């Protein structure tokens, strides 16, 4: 069941991420639906679920972009492992946690991908583009991740995969 949920979430997340507008005043930072999926498993799931989610979400994300395959997987794996490491430090399963983790993780993964892209053979990027996007990522990450985590938790509870008494 959890694999089906993961595949379903990946598909829906990929479509939403590519269709939702990324405003220019937010540096064209997308709403990170796929990163939300990774953080959901990092905060509430097992270690292997986190790693699988990070690897697959990163691959799907890269496949839909001009970014070379593997860059985002690498960034998502680091974000997922960091979120797992710190999940007991802050109040886990609170929307504020999702908000903070979302903002930090999206900004961090964006900055890492920017540095990797600077070294790649892809079309050149300016520092202004990178900095603008990292700043925008703080906003879009804090908005999208709590939403994705909330929806996934509701879905898993509806499917009986997670006990109903768990609070967010």
């Amino acid at each position, binding site marked *: 069941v959890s694999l089906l949920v993961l595949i379903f979430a990946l598909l829906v997340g990929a479509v939403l991420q590519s*269709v939702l507008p990324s405003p220019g005043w937010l540096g064209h930072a997308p709403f990170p639906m796929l990163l939300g999926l990774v953080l959901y498993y990092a905060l509430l799931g097992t270690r292997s679920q986190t790693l699988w989610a990070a690897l697959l979400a990163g691959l799907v994300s890269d496949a839909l972009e001009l970014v070379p395959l593997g860059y985002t997987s*690498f960034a998502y794996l680091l974000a997922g492992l960091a979120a797992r490491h710190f999940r007991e430090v802050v109040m886990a399963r609170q929307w504020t946690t999702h908000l903070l983790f979302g903002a930090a993780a999206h900004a961090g993964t964006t900055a890492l991908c920017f540095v990797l892209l600077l070294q790649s053979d892809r079309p050149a990027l300016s520092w202004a583009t990178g900095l603008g996007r990292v700043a925008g990522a703080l906003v879009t990450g804090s908005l999208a991740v709590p939403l994705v985590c909330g929806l996934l938790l509701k879905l898993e509870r509806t499917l009986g995969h997670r006990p109903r008494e768990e609070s967010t």
Partner: protein
Amino acid sequence: VRENRLITGLLLAVVLVVILNLPESVSGAFKGFVREAVAPLQDAVHRGWRSLGEAAASVRGFGSLARENQRLGSELAALRAEIRDLRALAAENEELRRELRFHARAPRQLIACEVLARDPDGWWQTLRLNKGRADGVLPNLAVVAAEGLIGRTVEVSEHTADVLLVSDPACKVAVRIPRTSTFGVLAGRGPSWRGETLCRIDFVNKNAAIRPGDEVVTSGLGGIFPKGLLVGYVGDQVFADRTGLYQQADVVSRARLGQLQYAYVVRGQPPANLMATPAPAGEAAP
């Protein structure tokens, strides 16, 4: 537990290294597979969103006008592009006659596409179109709209194509100002805070008397963009560059890149040396 973590970490590292070093053909095939899987859903969402917009317009009493306007807009785009092609062909024909030389030139054919998504990745200014290799779209083909050139194709799957827009700094276009017969290189400057398309033409002869409002067209020298496609008009800013050897000028594109619904890929054979490169840095200098 520590051993398990170490093994997992090592396995992941190996998997990542393999993924990062996949041959272009394999990673391209994977990307194509994922894009093909997602494209119908993207299309459905896009159509649904547009239907909602039309429904809202209908509520306001402009439903039929909106549809009619959309149809006419599409027709106008094709006709304008055709007229521009014909003008370029006529000028070339005249020149060839003058020089008593003739070479065959295939008429430009356009592949009409709908926009599936805008800025799907956000790193570069791109569009995703709903036509791909199956419809004759290849990487490094020019893409136009009614108002002129909008960019070039970069990554193409069976039924989708990503377009790098002229407003992106990575998209460089060899251009010409017909009034003064001056050549230059146009590059995007990214979107303005108000969402306008900003471009700048560089390496313009410092003695050329270019002025605001001059038409800017593709020169055809770079190998990617055919000759004579309208790019935009010289804006208010015309000035010498830092070295003082050339002029620079802002170029205003008439195409509303953020609101495009239809685009036309100029059918043709892309340069052979660029075929294998998914996203080259830009076109050659004039």
